[in-house]
Structure formats: structure tokens, C-alpha cells
């Protein structure tokens, strides 16, 4: 294997575990991240995603396993030799240094000559649209500006890898949406692998090429963002990613890809990932946007009747809440523009037999 300096960067983790006493924060993770990949670790707080990031950065030593950056084993290497960039949720800019001093800090630590430092500073300031802020101190900047300075500091030395720990969590919604697009653009332009930690599924879905959904120190699912969204591997992923109706029933007839069950008197067909026998209790998840609410039954597939209790206006979309005869509810989401149904009327709820996912409880 040749290892030229311009060889694309990659990261691999080999059965990495981190135990804090009896707690297994990270439990035997294997992972390989490609050269130009935007990779997200998605999970609720306490799932071990931040611990994993800290292991990659060198801030924590794994209990077992190996960490390799560009093929080099860095497991025991201190953080300052790894040449990894990192961006934090609370920015962590040096308050006693100006914007310019903060950004060139990694280059100074690598003893890069002044001329090159200045050149790279200009490049980074331009890339992150920080012109005119060079002499400001961090406390004179807005949150968004601080986060861009933090990104510039992480990127200026063209690291082997950039780690981002919930970098947008402290920004307001509008700015967050804007930064999501920008951060993905930097990753694609610079061709540096990004490992992005977040508990926000929207962020992960917007930016990532691949997503790993993490819980209790292990990956529940790892795959392209479409797969994680469309084909959840576990009930946890189905519940965590996207917005779904969660229902329970007993499987009746199980085929290779599809099964049949009766839910509150309605015969339904659902896909399943395998491992379910007839007679098993199952949970199934139908995403809001897969469901159509119409005055009359129009499409084939699964059908349930009810009446429209309310419409929750969300802007671009609206949530349609349908009450069924026995009092249970199903929620659908659709464009808010052409509402064909009115509140209080009888409606038909349909979704294709290929939509949703069914798991053994």
C-alpha cells in the first residue's frame, strides 16, 4: 500500500470500547470512514457518541481496540500529534486572542512559516466569510461568527479529519439551517472527511453521506442517510429518525418481505426486516408523510377509516390528526396548500403496503 502525503484521509476504528467503571460508554465499535465522506453519529444524549469523538481526537484512551488515521495507528498518540481538527458546541475560542490569532493557532503550533501562515489565514477568512473581523476578540462576535471562527481554526491546517461535536446546537434555528448547508459545502470543497456528532436528526439527514445511529455505546444502524430514513434496521432507529405513528399488533401471516396483521379490525400489510414468526407481537412504524388523508378511499394498499380531528399548520406542511372509531389517532403530514379535507368530516387514511416498518417487540 502506497502512502503518499496527498493520499486521501480516512479513519478506522477497530473494536473500540471505552468503559467507565461498569458503564460501557462505547462498546466494541468497528468503523471505517472514507476519503471524502461526511459521516454523522446520531444518537440521544448518553448514547456514547461524544465519547467516541473524544477517543478519535485522543482526549480519551479507549479501554480496548485501535484507532487508525490514514492507516497509522494513533491509539496511544496524544491529541497534539494527531493533526485532527475539532469544532465544539460551545466554540471554545481562546478569549485572550483575536480572531486572526485564534485561526492561525494550529499553524503556529506546527511551526509553519509566517508567510504561509498569513496566506492560509486569508484563505480561511475568505472561505468562512470572516473578512474584516481579524482584529476582533471572540466576545465581540455573534454566535454564528464565533462558530465560523471555530470552523476556520479547525480547517486552516487542512487536518486529516475534522470532528464536529454538536457545533450548531447553540445557534438559532435560522442560522442553523444556513450553517448546515455551508458546513456540507466546506466538506465537499475541501475533501476532508467530517465526523459530525449530533442528537438532531434533521442536521444529520441534511448534511451526511452516511449516518450511524448510536444507542448505549453500540451502532443500531449504519448506512447511507436514505437507508437509515427509509429502511430502519431496528425499532429504535424507526422511532428516532423521522416522525412516525407507532402502533402495536400481532403478526398473522408472515411472508419473506411482507407480513399481514389485524390492527383494531383493519387488515394491514407491512414490510419487515425478518426474524418475525406468525403469532409474534410486533410494533410497526408508519412515517407521517407516507400516509394520505382523503375524503374518499382513492389509493390501493392499507386503509383505515376515521374522522379528521384537527389540522396542525406547520408552514410548508401540515399535520392531519385523524381519530379512529375506537379513539386512537393516526397522524399524517402533507403539503399545507391544497387541503382537500375539513375538520370534523369522515376521512379515509391510506398508505402503500411497501411503506413503514414492522419489528418484533
Amino acid at each position: 500500500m502506497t502512502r503518499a502525503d496527498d493520499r486521501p484521509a480516512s479513519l478506522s476504528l477497530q473494536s473500540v470500547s471505552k468503559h467507565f467503571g461498569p458503564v460501557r460508554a462505547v462498546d466494541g465499535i468497528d468503523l471505517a470512514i472514507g476519503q471524502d465522506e461526511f459521516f454523522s453519529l446520531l444518537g440521544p444524549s448518553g448514547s456514547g457518541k461524544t465519547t467516541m469523538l473524544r477517543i478519535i481526537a485522543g482526549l480519551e484512551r479507549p479501554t480496548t481496540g485501535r484507532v487508525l488515521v490514514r492507516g497509522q495507528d494513533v491509539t496511544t498518540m496524544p491529541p497534539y500529534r494527531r493533526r485532527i481538527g475539532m469544532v465544539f458546541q460551545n466554540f471554545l475560542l481562546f478569549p485572550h486572542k483575536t480572531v486572526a490569532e485564534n485561526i492561525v493557532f494550529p499553524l503556529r503550533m506546527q511551526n509553519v512559516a509566517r508567510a504561509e501562515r498569513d496566506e492560509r489565514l486569508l484563505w480561511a477568512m475568505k472561505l468562512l466569510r470572516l473578512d474584516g473581523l481579524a482584529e476582533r476578540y471572540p466576545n465581540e462576535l455573534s454566535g454564528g461568527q464565533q462558530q465560523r471562527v471555530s470552523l476556520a481554526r479547525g480547517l486552516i491546517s487542512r487536518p486529516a479529519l475534522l470532528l464536529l461535536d454538536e457545533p450548531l446546537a447553540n445557534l438559532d434555528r435560522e442560522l442553523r439551517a444556513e450553517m448546515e448547508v455551508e458546513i456540507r459545502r466546506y466538506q465537499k470543497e475541501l475533501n476532508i472527511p467530517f465526523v459530525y456528532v449530533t442528537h438532531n436528526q434533521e442536521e444529520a439527514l441534511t448534511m451526511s453521506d452516511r449516518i450511524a445511529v448510536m444507542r448505549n455505546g453500540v451502532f443500531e444502524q449504519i448506512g447511507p442517510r436514505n437507508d437509515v430514513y427509509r429502511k430502519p434496521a431496528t425499532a429504535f432507529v424507526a422511532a428516532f429518525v423521522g416522525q412516525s405513528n407507532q402502533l402495536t399488533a400481532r403478526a398473522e401471516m408472515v411472508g419473506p418481505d411482507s407480513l399481514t396483521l389485524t390492527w383494531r379490525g383493519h387488515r394491514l400489510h407491512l414490510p419487515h426486516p425478518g426474524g418475525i414468526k406468525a403469532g409474534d407481537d410486533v410494533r410497526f412504524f408508519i412515517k407521517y408523510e407516507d400516509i394520505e388523508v382523503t375524503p374518499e378511499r382513492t389509493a390501493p394498499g392499507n386503509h383505515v377509516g376515521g374522522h379528521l380531528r384537527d389540522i396542525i399548520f406547520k408552514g410548508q406542511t401540515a399535520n392531519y390528526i385523524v381519530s379512529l372509531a375506537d379513539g386512537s389517532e393516526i397522524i399524517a403530514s402533507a403539503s399545507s396548500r391544497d387541503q382537500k379535507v375539513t375538520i370534523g368530516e369522515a376521512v379515509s387514511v391510506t398508505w402503500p403496503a411497501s411503506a413503514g416498518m414492522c419489528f418484533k417487540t
Partner: protein
Amino acid sequence: MTRIPPLLLLAGPGVLFILVTLLLPLLAIFMFSFWRTESYELYPDWNLDNYRVLFTEAAYRTFLLRSLIGALVTSLLCLLYAWPVAYFIARHGGRYRLLLVLLLAAPFFTGVILRIAALQGIFGPGGLINMALGIFGLPPIAALMYTPLAATIGHVYLFVPFMVTAIYLSLVNFNFDLLETAKINGAGPWRAFIEVTWPLNWIGTAIGLALVFIPCLASAVTPRFLGGPSATSFGMSLGQQFGETGTWALGSAMGVVLFAFSLLVLAVMGFTVNLKRSGFTGMGAR
């Protein structure tokens, strides 16, 4: 009836107290320093003789220089000793942090004379160290008996808690995550300390230095008990002017000189502090 503004009511007593107990005596000392003493009496005939004596007589210059060097050495030793201790407590003290800092102040529960007497009991001719050496047939360490070294050790012992407390209070407000950030960005442990920890804790350190340097410069009791004849300090001599010799005017002039040097040190310290670069947020911004 005119109403007194509430701010004046609040600040008034404090201002009055400072005026009576601090400013007035200072002004009096300043005034006396231009007077003359004769047979234990002060005479208000204005002259500069006291200052002339101070700056021309070799003995006073020696005392002043000795005190300045002593205070400087003590401050630096305290600095070297206090940083690791304060750092350790702030970083690893956990829930015992406060207790550990209070323990450092434990010697203050007794009086200063008692503490110095205790040191004498360790360093002196019949003290712990030299007695122990005697048991093994070794000669006593002369350098510890009534020498400037013994006085300096005494000063370090007396003043180091101030330094530790000042640095500790600074470090507990320091965000150690910044240290991790520096390391991720390529700074080794020492580089990270110099780039981040030291500058962001400089104000606390400077306060510690001032808290040690200034009382040490004026110190009289410690060199008298521990230092011996070759350690006569400016403060000791100053004390004598108000006591044995009764030359109040000269003593006052010495007090003014001491005060001036302390101000100078504070000014130098203040000069090194750039509020914008101190990491204090919300101060000096814009």
C-alpha cells in the same frame, strides 16, 4: 428637609472609615516625613533632611536593597511553589477543593509570632534539624541559623497561602476545556500552558505576587526573629525609628519610601494586564 441620596447613605460609612483609618494616617506620615525629631519630640519645621539621610547613608540603602531583593526572591519562590499546588487543587481537588484551600490557611489560626517561633524551633541551633544532625554526629547547618536564607524561608512560609489562594481563585474560574482545545490544535502540554493557561490566569497570579511582595517588602518581625544581624531589613529599621530611637520623622520618611515602592510595584503589575487579553468577557469590549 433635604433628602440624602441613598447611594451616599450606603457608601458614606465605608468612605468615612477609609478616610479616618487609612488616608489620614497616610497623610500624617507624609507630613511628618518633612518634619524633624529631637529628643523624642516632633517639630514642624519643614525640611528634606530625612530623605537626604535615607539616600546618602549606606546603611539605609543596604536595608532597602536587601528588603527589595528579599521580597523579590520570596515572591518568585512563592510563585513556583503555589502554581502547582493551586493547579492540583483546582484540577483534581474535586469536592475537597474548598477544604484543601482552607487547610492552607490553617497556620493563620495561630498568630504570626507563634508561627515564627515554630520555625525557630525547626531551624535554630537547638532546633529540630540541627538537633537531628547532632544525633548522627553531623555539624549543624549554619546557613539555616539566623541568616537571610532563614528569613526568606520564613517569608515564603508566611506568605505562600496568599499566593495559592489568589492563583486557585483564578484557576477555578478557568475553563480547562480550552486546554484540551489547545492540545487538539497541536500544542504540547508546555506550549498549551504558555499559550492558554498562563495568560488567562495572569491577573490572579499578579494579585498573588502583589499580596506577597508588598507585605514582604515591609516585613520586620520575621527577619528580626529568623534573620540575625546580617538580615536587618528596611521594615525592621523603620520599626526602630518609631521605637528605640524615637526618630519619628525619619521613620515617616522611610514609610513614604516603602509606600512609593509598593505603588511602583502595583503600577508595574497593572501595566502588564491588558484587560482585553485577560480573557475577561464583557470588560473592555468594543
